């Protein structure tokens, strides 16, 4: 709600309220003052005026009574009464003066007082005459002056009364007008105040609504932050390759964290193995049912059967839970698991549908990520330890298996054999029939190896056409030969590959722990040496390692290994033997290959050329020699003879 228009009106309304209240209060004060004046001057004044009129009449009447009798003893009470009435008149006049009447009224009372004093003076004279027995004279004086002065006093009294009435009328109209202005001011004040209060109430209401919304938002933000932290923790589990079950348990616990009573179950397929995790907050019957559920793959997706889904829905309903089934898929859309979320009916898994959807979506994403990451990690781990082409363990894994087998053999005092196979003339097959046929041949060879060994044994591919087999838990060294013979027999069988009926053989070397070495690397090296011995023995056979062959074969293997990098490392060079004719003339040069290896030093061609020939390196070396000799010859033809040649020349 936009509150600034309301906020902007409050100062205006406040000013209006202040102005209205000020006007109302001022006018009310005026009205009160005028009402008080009206009461004091007019009400009290009228009462006083009435008293005056009565008292003057009383005075006059008593005086006339005195005139009516002749006995002074009877006249005196009337005279006293007249005088008392006169005193009351004077007291009343003083009382009238105290009401602080306006000048228009006080002028009238002043006139009355003067006229009354004149009357009293005359009356005293008449009284004196009466009491003196001069009734006739008294009557004459009264007729001549007393009556007139008394009537004058009465007229002034009536004038006073009229002045009071005028004043009352004026003041009443003023009071009316002032009260109306007061009512207008107060009405404005009340209206403005009401508007302010209304605006403040609206603002407070809006503020309360905003505060509630903020509280909800904060709560949801805290939930989201907590959700993020839990998500990060799960991602850390995934990133650190924690056990998948632990990550799935954390994912399954998310709904119960979000709302007590909620729960989830997660199924995953890793290596065709079904794993599950169930939130502990779910009722036990439902948990038991979930653990015993079977799933089926329908069109590549993991699904509950209709019957299972119905039973599950019934159990959830009995527990007053609503269920949501979310299939888990990897990036390519393959089914990798299933997520079931249960929420208490009548509520929600979260304070809002957005958060609920977000939680469900994040749970599904996390579960899919965890499962896919696990799958990927296991695939990578597999690839790191296996040969991609054949699926057999690679050198690394094989060495580890050998190490494990050695450890077991140490405890059991048994033998471990390493068999090193190298396909005979594989290069020819590869070159003639193509790499695809060569690859298929390698795969078939691997299958035959794997199918020919025990489950506890290991077959591995460690090079292009080199395979090794680990035979553990052998009773004696002779068992290794039995294994070798068995494998050689299986290998010799013909293979139908891409329309080619191929018959292949392999040479094998065998080394046995602990007879031929205590370390995996030594065992493999000795098996390799023995394999070379078998090659030299005519191929398609196997040889058991012999210690006396170790040194020579070791030198040979070392030379072969170094030869592989000799051309690239520029270790070869040529020397030229001049050819002299019969007439003692120079007829040519004989190029002689020399190899100076940084590790082996200068190696004789008589030693390394046969090895190069056996290893198939001689063609590349010959090419290099031809190219180098031609280049040198061309330079010589251009006169660029080296010093030694010039000397000969």
């Amino acid at each position, binding site marked *: 709600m936009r509150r600034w228009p309301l906020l902007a009106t409050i100062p205006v309304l406040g000013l209006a309220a202040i102005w209205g209240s000020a006007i109302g209060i001022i006018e009310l004060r005026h009205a009160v003052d005028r009402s008080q004046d009206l009461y004091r001057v007019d009400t009290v004044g009228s009462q006083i005026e009435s008293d005056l009129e009565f008292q003057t009449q009383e005075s006059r009447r008593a005086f006339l009574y005195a005139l009516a009798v002749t006995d*002074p*003893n009877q006249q*005196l009470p009337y*005279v006293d009464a007249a005088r008392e009435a006169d005193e009351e008149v004077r007291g009343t006049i003083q009382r009238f003066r105290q009401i602080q009447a306006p000048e228009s009224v006080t002028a009238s009372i002043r006139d009355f007082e003067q006229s009354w004093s004149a009357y009293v003076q005359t009356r005293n004279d008449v*009284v*004196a005459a009466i*009491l*003196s*027995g*001069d009734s006739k004279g008294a009557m004459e004086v009264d007729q001549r002056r007393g009556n007139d002065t008394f009537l004058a006093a009465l007229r002034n009294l009536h004038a006073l009364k009229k002045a009071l009435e005028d004043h009352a009328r004026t003041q009443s109209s003023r009071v009316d007008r002032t009260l109306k202005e007061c009512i207008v001011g107060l009405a404005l004040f009340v209206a403005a105040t009401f508007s302010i209060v209304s605006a403040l109430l609206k603002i407070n209401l809006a503020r309360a609504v905003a505060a509630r919304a903020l509280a909800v938002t904060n709560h949801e933000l805290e939930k989201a932050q907590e959700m993020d932290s839990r998500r990060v923790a799960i991602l850390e589990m995934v990133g650190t390759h924690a056990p998948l079950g632990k990550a799935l348990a954390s994912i399954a616990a998310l709904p119960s964290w979000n709302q007590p009573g909620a729960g989830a179950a997660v199924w995953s397929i890793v290596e065709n193995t079904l794993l599950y995790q169930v939130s502990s907050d779910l009722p036990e019957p439902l948990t038991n049912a979930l653990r015993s559920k079977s799933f089926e793959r329908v069109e590549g997706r993991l699904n509950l059967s209709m019957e299972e889904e119905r039973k599950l829905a019934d159990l959830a309903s009995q527990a007053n839970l609503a269920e949501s089934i979310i299939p888990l898929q990897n990036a390519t859309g393959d089914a990798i698991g299933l997520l079931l979320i249960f929420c208490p009916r009548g509520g929600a898994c979260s304070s809002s549908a957005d958060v609920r959807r977000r939680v469900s979506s994040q749970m599904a994403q996390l579960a899919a990520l965890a499962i896919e990451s696990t799958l990927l990690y296991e695939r990578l781990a597999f690839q790191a330890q296996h040969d991609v082409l054949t699926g057999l363990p690679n050198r690394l894994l094989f060495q580890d298996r050998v190490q494990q087998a050695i450890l077991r053999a140490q405890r059991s005092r048994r033998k471990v054999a390493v068999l090193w196979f190298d396909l005979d003339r594989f290069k020819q097959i590869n070159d003639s029939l193509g790499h695809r046929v060569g690859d298929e041949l390698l795969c078939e060879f691997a299958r035959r190896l794997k199918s020919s060994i025990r489950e506890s044994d290991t077959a591995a591919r460690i090079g292009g056409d080199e395979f090794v087999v680990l035979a553990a838990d052998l009773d004696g060294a002779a068992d290794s030969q039995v294994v070798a013979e068995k494998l050689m027999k299986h290998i010799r069988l013909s293979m139908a590959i891409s329309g080619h009926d191929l018959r292949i053989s392999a040479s094998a070397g065998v080394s046995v722990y602990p007879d031929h070495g205590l370390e995996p690397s030594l065992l493999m090296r000795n098996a390799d040496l023995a394999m070379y011995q078998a090659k030299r023995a005519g191929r398609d056979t196997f040889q058991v390692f012999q210690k006396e062959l170790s040194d020579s074969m070791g030198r040979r293997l070392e030379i072969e290994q170094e030869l592989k990098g000799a051309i690239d490392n520029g270790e070869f060079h040529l020397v030229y033997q001049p050819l002299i004719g019969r007439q003692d003339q120079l007829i040519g040069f004989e190029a002689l290959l020399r190899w100076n290896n940084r590790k082996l030093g200068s190696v004789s061609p008589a030693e390394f050329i046969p090895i190069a020939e056996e290893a198939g390196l001689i063609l590349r070396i010959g090419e290099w020699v031809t190219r180098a000799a031609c280049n040198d010859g061309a330079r010589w033809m251009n006169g660029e003879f080296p010093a030694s040649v010039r000397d000969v020349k």
Partner: protein
Amino acid sequence: VRFALKFSNTTRTLALLGCLAPSAAPAAGEEFSAIVHRSNPVENLSVKDLRAMFTGAISHWPNRVKIVLAQRESGSPPNGFLMARLLNTSWRDYKRSLETMEFEGQEPVTFRVLNSDLAACKFVFNVPSALALIATSSAASPECRDVRVLRIDGALPSQEGYKLK
């Protein structure tokens, strides 16, 4: 007191009546006061002047205002003292002498008979030219506070040498 004593026939007649026995005798030792209006300029009278005023021999105050006598009724102590001690006559003779004076064409003495000292006080209060004789004991009453008691031969009542007792 400076005013002219006017001896008239009435005065003489009253003097002749002095041998008459008083109508009522005042109690022994009782004092009487002569009171006048506060506006009256006279403050002191001699017994002789007082007697002349009551007998009509002096009829006006020095300010030319006619004296109005306020007499107590017959049988009252002030009337008894006035008749017996001051005028030496009786009430009947006193009135007769006044009637005679009027019959003979003299200026009549104005007097009014009042039934009490308090009434006499009120009368004097209302009539500026009045003169009354009342018991001194009554002169202290509230009704008499607005009149003035005259010195008689220079003495106020209760003072030594006061003669109206």
